[in-house]
């Protein structure tokens, strides 16, 4: 099934889905959060050897987030990108880690970096971050990393730098 045919099938089935880009090679759909599991089930049934590439988060400012899913089907050379728009201080979306187990860690990383909760995920511990950054969601735009605003991040203060090179305290 070519990319456009698949996208048309989804758009016809679920009216809330908005297509943003439709070519045979790349398809970009905006999907509401409640429908993501159904759409992912559809793509898994239509393309048995589909390769799940990425689940990533994106912080559009003002507490608006986007979760982007990218799948690739090699047989039909078709790259499929789904976007889910979320809002709120603690956004929630369903997990797809039971359909594609390889995405379990991608979801875990998105959760710890952006604070997006994946409902039904078996294990949402911290994956990459050290323990002191739990709950800080470093990839959000409001997590500042310049030293002047270090106190906002909750991290411990570093040792003061010596005034001249060569003098150590």
């Amino acid at each position, binding site marked *: 099934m070519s990319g456009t045919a698949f996208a048309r099938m989804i758009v016809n089935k679920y009216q809330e889905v908005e297509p943003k880009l439709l070519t045979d090679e790349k398809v970009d759909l905006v999907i509401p959060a409640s429908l993501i599991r159904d759409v992912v089930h559809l793509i898994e049934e239509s393309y048995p050897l589909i*390769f799940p*590439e990425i689940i990533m988060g*994106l912080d559009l400012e003002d507490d608006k987030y986007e979760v982007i899913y990218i799948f690739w089907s*090699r047989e039909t050379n078709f790259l499929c990108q789904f976007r889910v728009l979320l809002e709120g201080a603690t956004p929630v979306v369903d997990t797809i880690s039971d359909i594609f*187990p*390889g995405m379990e860690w991608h979801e875990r990383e998105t959760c710890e970096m952006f604070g997006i909760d994946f409902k039904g995920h078996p294990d949402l511990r911290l994956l990459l971050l050290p323990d002191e950054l739990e709950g800080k969601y*470093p*990839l959000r735009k409001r997590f500042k990393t310049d030293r002047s605003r270090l106190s906002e991040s909750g991290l411990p203060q570093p040792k003061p730098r010596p005034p001249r090179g060569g003098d150590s305290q």
Partner: protein
Amino acid sequence: MSPDILDEAVELWFGPQHVSAHGWATKLTLVGDYIVECDPNAGYFHRSAEKCLEFRTFKQGSLILERLCMLEAFLAEYPYLSAVEQIAGLEVPERAKIMRTIMMEACRIHSLQFWWGQFSAELGMFTMTLWPWIDREYFLDAFEELTGSRHAAAYGTPGGVKYDFTEKSVKVLEHAIAHMESQMPKFKDMILHNPSFKVRTKGIGQYDVKQGLKWGLSGPNIRACGTPMDLRQDVNDPNLAYDMVDWEVPTFHSEDHPGESDAFDRMVQRFLEIEASVKIIRQLLPLVPDGPIVDPKARAKSNRLPAGEAYGRIEGTRGLASVWLKTTDKAQSPYRAKIRGPCLNSYYSLKHLVPGSKFADFIVIFGSLDPYPGWWDR
């Protein structure tokens, strides 16, 4: 220590301080000699590359990507450059395209030689650790002759490459390839025909294509199952020269278990990869035309990029690596750069592959999937 120690479940941290744990800590639950549960823990190498990229210019960004996987530096920086070139609308000149492809394949060969050495060391044979590493030195000499640096050479730049081929650098590269080809029969003898290797790796860590794809494995790990999944041929990238070459995707078809691959198959697969890379380089070397090595508009255009989103991908040594890039208008650095490292899914798949095998096989399974912690921790 109770006498029932062999029937109790013992938790063992194959921890961050371990001779062959190159930056991972896996919690294994053992009953006797069998692993019952495997809980991989990543995060010991995390350097927040994605956040760092948001504060670097587009030219500086590729340096961060390079250092994620030092062994395949030329390959690792390409997805980012590809995404930047897509957004900025840069056209890579022909000479740069071919040079990029040649150096990427040379990097692939040298990375695979490193992997052999590491895998053999984990299996207890130090002879086969040092022989590939000695041949790898010739490749590092070639990189040094071309760029001045052995490893992370910062070779690519948006719109082309930074260092031009000279006669001497081409000669050193050809010498490295010729030397390696002469050593390949010896390596094949020592590894593939060595009965102790077969005994150690046959039947270990077996999975089939569908399972592998679901877990997110890619690259040689899937090609060893018999499916020719290779981004170099599946997708026609206009910034690389793979379409100029007549070559076949190296795929290993196993006779004992078609459609599945075990550790032995993945080793054979990587021999085939090197042969394919050599073929590509040999065909491309005479085809290098004269011309500029970087897009003349790159200097003007790659400073401030228009708004856009792009997705750059590369078939790395260990699998499919990609960078998803989003920029805002006239920005000097990306708004969001997401890096996909192939080894994240390799490390994850251990959760499913390892339980049921013996303790001594853990390292064989993991080593055969070619892990590199820079790629999953970023």
